[in-house]
């Protein structure tokens, strides 16, 4: 007889036994614990859905198992009852030859059951996915490529053995290193030049632009790996020579001694920081040898990419290491900020499972390891030159050179370099621009995606430079920004215009009229004795989307009127589940009863296929691909680049629209008894929802439940799944649904009639955005401006943020409370970046494995103006869709703080973070 959980606990308590690591009651407890998907389906059928609040609100406020770090094998039906644990050993030396390790210090009971090294991976014919190119483990006899590179996985059968071993091995002294070699040299990860020369008037075509000529990269390198930016005096270089020649002309102009031109030439440095999401990376893997099935539980921002990577990792592996099935399950994420997008961590979770077959193995970073091995923000070194016509106050030219520290693996470095470079002009309209950028390989911890993604760095340098320009002219800083703001339809650095609203001047007006700004002189005068007061302003624009963004959505309604939504987007705090509910409710009236996110295999009925890389494919390849009605340029995107609202809800919204039009509407027509030839049958857009009641003038209101029951009885559409793709514009396709032609911003569709299964509908035509849109760089953008007032104690340099205000435009806010919350969070992260957080490079930095929150300070409540932080979200323009906003809200905070510090102290800091000590020294 199986004991209930309660009975087992009582028995255990009475016996006084040592329980080991077996879960008390679990496994032996409830006959079948809820499965992973059931736990991750929120709020869940029959569960309380508050009128306010997030759909994950109750789960998160009650400590439900939700995150990857919450799950153990005993929580998952069908898994082994016990969990084994793995330790990923990373090295803290990247200048000496790694020679192996010695586990002699471990007591007998703390010995690993399995040790996995580079040799084991090689013998098992494990492949490394291209994105993570390099050695998964540093082989003995080689110098590690970077600090924190893994050298081994140690797998322990029992938790106690693991726990004792991890404490005994924490100092890393068991690793042996030999001869000093210096760091491993590596090629740079990418070098690009963005040069634009506008025509004589805004209406004229550009003389030269990346949009016209394509993106260019120099083909020549110095021995250090740095590119040679000037064209070489040889007839080589192809397209690069033309762009570089224009670029050098722009630089010559900035170097001329023109008295009418104000030229500032400044350097700025930003630091490496950690995303510092609260849940360290972790995962669970179990390879069932009898079924040859690998199951994983992971928490990442890029589930589809992870699944593909795992399949590649093991795809050609030796017998015993190549599962027949991989069932990758993805959990709610305890913070991401980009650091869990394309992270290599799941590869190691999988290896832990495969190398200890039959056992469920958990791999989890502790915080030291997360600092040592987690993705970081790129440190930038920037030199910027800006020229301003002193008479008009207009920017005439801008040139900049960026060098990024990419760390030990390429990851997203080329992309961060290009996004940072193309964002280096911020909101401004500049007719001549030349920006070079290079992402360098170093022995540092790998840098990759992190909130703000390049533009945080380059726009901080820009907005502090703009403040200096305004002082030098002199001109009011907001007026200078207004005068130079890119007008709607104006071309950015790549030679393309934003295709969404650009409400810069509205935001500048908001900033200008705010009391923080209008009272800045008075507040400065009235500073308390011993204190300095300063006010700073900055404004930023941030792209949302990557240029190859996908959305998968599935919406169903039951005969009882219960709505289910499934999406591939990831919930990492961004409120995507709630945004899906709210956007679908616009079409279906009711709030969904259940939502699943981070789904990879819930859309199999679409039978999607892809070929090539959507960012680099040729038009001919796309033209060929789209002949197959199942083909799409990309299947699923990471939840990153602020795409949640805009992209993450797109497919579900379009699915809901179809479900209404071809399911609920015909059912309503039938319930109303309207004849087929009645013109009102065509007036589906005239009806509207009041909560879950459908209202049509002159007809009886119909409750959703009644309509849903009728739709099922009529066997009309009751479920829809769709795929959408955006390359700075949505792909659009036409389908025949129920004999009608339906055109929408989706490219694949499947429908369910009544309670049948889903049937894929082939599109009759499709228009994918042309592949040369990949040259655009960015076409979707939101704006945010920030004001801060700081108070600095002269004697100590201690800074207090007295008041702050951010004005933001983001189209239609799907969950307004989350928009404000993300803005407040962005403010806090901006404060941390500007004033507190820093990771030194190399041996003193996080790669040494000794970093934790003791040394690394993120903003606390007491660092922030909790009761004096005002967020204003501009109402959307008519029919304006949702726009991404999670990154842009952080960016202006940083330069606004630096500009406020200058206003208070008269000192311009040109590196981050600006610490209390630095301010004190500057005031000394």
């Amino acid at each position, binding site marked *: 007889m199986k004991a209930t959980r309660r009975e087992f606990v009582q028995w*255990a*308590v009475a016996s006084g036994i040592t329980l080991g690591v077996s879960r008390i009651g679990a496994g032996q407890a409830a006959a079948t614990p809820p499965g992973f998907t059931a736990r991750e389906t929120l709020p869940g059928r029959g569960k309380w859905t508050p009128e306010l609040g997030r759909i994950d*609100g109750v789960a998160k406020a009650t400590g439900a198992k939700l995150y990857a770090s919450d799950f153990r094998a005993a929580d998952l039906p069908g898994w082994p009852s016990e969990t084994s644990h793995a330790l990923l050993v990373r090295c803290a030396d990247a200048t000496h030859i790694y020679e192996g390790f010695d586990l002699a210090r471990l007591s007998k009971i703390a010995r690993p059951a399995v040790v996995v090294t580079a040799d084991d991976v090689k013998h098992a014919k494990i492949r490394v996915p291209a994105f993570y190119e390099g050695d998964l483990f540093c082989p003995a006899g080689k110098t590690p490529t970077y600090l924190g590179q893994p050298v081994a996985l140690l797998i322990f059968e029992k938790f106690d053995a693991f726990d*004792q071993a991890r404490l005994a091995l924490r100092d890393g002294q068991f690793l042996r290193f030999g001869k000093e070699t210096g760091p491993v040299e590596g090629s740079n990860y990418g070098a690009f030049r963005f040069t634009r020369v506008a025509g004589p008037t805004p209406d004229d075509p550009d003389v030269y632009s990346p949009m016209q000529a394509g993106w260019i990269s120099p083909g020549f390198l110095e021995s250090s790996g740095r590119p040679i930016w000037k064209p070489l005096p040889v007839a080589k270089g192809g397209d690069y020579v033309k762009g570089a020649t224009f670029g050098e002309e722009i630089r010559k102009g900035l170097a001329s001694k023109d008295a009418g031109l104000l030229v500032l030439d400044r350097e700025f440095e930003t630091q490496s920081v950690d995303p510092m999401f609260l849940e360290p990376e972790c995962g669970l893997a179990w390879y069932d040898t009898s079924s040859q099935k690998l199951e994983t539980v992971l928490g990442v921002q890029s589930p589809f990419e992870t699944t593909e990577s795992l399949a590649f990792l093991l795809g050609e592996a030796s017998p015993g290491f190549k599962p027949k099935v991989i069932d990758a399950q993805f959990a709610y994420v305890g913070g991401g900020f980009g650091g869990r997008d394309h992270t290599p961590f799941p590869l190691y979770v999988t290896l832990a499972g495969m190398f200890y077959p039959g056992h469920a193995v958990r791999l989890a970073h502790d915080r030291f390891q997360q600092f040592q091995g987690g993705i970081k923000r790129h440190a930038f070194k920037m030199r910027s030159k800006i020229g301003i016509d002193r008479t008009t106050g207009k920017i005439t030219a801008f040139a900049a050179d960026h060098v990024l520290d990419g760390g030990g693996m390429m990851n997203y470095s080329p992309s961060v370099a290009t996004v940072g470079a193309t964002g280096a002009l911020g909101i401004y309209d500049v007719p001549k621009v030349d920006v070079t950028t290079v992402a360098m390989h170093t022995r540092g911890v790998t840098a990759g995606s992190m909130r703000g993604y390049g533009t945080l760095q380059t726009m901080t340098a820009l907005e502090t430079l703009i403040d200096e320009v305004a002082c030098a002219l002199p001109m009011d800083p907001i007026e200078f920004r207004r005068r130079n703001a890119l007008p709607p339809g104006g071309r950015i650095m790549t030679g393309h215009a934003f295709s969404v609203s650009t409400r810069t001047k509205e935001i500048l007006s908001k900033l200008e009229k705010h009391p923080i700004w209008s009272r800045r002189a008075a507040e400065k005068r009235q500073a308390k004795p011993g204190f300095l007061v300063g006010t700073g302003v900055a404004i930023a624009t941030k792209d949302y989307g990557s240029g190859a963004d996908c959305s998968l959505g599935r919406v169903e309604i039951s005969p009882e009127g219960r709505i289910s939504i499934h999406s591939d987007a990831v919930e990492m705090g961004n409120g995507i589940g709630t945004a899906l509910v709210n956007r679908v409710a616009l079409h279906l009236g009711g709030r969904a009863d259940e939502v699943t996110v981070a789904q990879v295999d819930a859309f199999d009925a679409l039978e999607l296929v892809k070929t090539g890389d959507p960012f680099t494919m040729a038009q001919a390849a796309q033209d060929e691909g789209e002949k197959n009605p199942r083909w799409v340029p990309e299947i699923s995107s990471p939840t990153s680049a602020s795409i949640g609202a805009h992209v993450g809800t797109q497919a579900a919204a379009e699915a809901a629209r179809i479900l209404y039009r071809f399911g609920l509407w015909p059912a309503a027509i039938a319930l109303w008894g309207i004849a087929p030839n009645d013109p009102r049958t065509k007036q589906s857009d005239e009806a509207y929802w009041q909560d879950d009641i459908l209202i049509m003038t002159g007809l009886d209101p119909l409750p959703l439940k009644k309509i849903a029951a009728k739709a099922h009885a009529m066997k009309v559409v009751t479920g829809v799944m769709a795929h959408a793709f955006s390359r700075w514009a949505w792909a659009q396709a036409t389908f025949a649904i129920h004999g009608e032609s339906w055109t929408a911003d989706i490219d694949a569709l499947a429908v369910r009639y009544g309670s049948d299964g889903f049937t894929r509908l082939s599109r009759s035509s499709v228009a994918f955005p042309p592949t040369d849109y990949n040259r655009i760089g960015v076409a979707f953008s939101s704006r945010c401006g920030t004001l801060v007032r700081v108070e600095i104690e002269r004697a100590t340099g201690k800074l207090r943020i007295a008041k702050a205000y951010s004005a933001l435009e983001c189209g239609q806010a799907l969950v307004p409370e989350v928009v404000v919350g993300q803005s407040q969070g962005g403010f806090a992260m901006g404060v941390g970046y500007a004033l507190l957080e820093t990771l030194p490079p190399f041996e003193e930095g996080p790669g040494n494995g000794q970093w934790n*929150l003791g040394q690394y300070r993120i903003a606390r409540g007491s660092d922030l103006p909790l*009761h004096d932080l005002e967020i204003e979200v501009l109402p959307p323009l008519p029919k304006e869709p949702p726009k991404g906003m999670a990154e842009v809200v952080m960016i202006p905070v940083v330069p606004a703080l630096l500009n406020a510090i200058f206003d208070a102290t008269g000192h311009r800091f040109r590196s981050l973070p600006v610490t209390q000590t630095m301010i004190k020294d500057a005031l000394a």
Partner: protein
Amino acid sequence: MTTLALTINGRAYGPIEVRDDLTMNDFLREYLGMTGTKYGCGAAQCLSCAVIVDRPDGTSHTNPTCIVPASSFNGKTIRTIEGHAKNGELTILQKTFIEHFAFQCGYCTPGFLNEGQVLLERLEKSPVAHADLDITIGEALDGHLCRCTGYVKYHEAVRAAVLTEPTRFLKDSAQ
């Protein structure tokens, strides 16, 4: 090895033999499967691991669990996030956390919820003036780290919980 017996959310556990260097966080998460209490830093810096310790005198305080040996909790009575709601009924604070969108990723929520609950219970015994409420909340929650929210909505949620029953928590509730 040390013998450990304690009460968690009103239920007795132990006596159980545990290693001397086993942390309370691992005892809860690995031995008992109670993962509502989070692991964040292992250095008592973020406090996402904090639980409520109820003293015999009827007062309570929060305690980190990530660097504290499980054995140090022997004989103690603690509460974790799993124990706040009773019979499916959420506490005032859980409701205001939800209604005010206090959290985003939610990973730090257990620590904030426990700290906020301790504050509410303290205010019930020792009310403060309405004018001191914000600073009282600020002092109570400071030190708990959150990377998503900027803390504002956590503070608003605790404030709202106090103001749902001002006569219970404030000296001068009429103000």
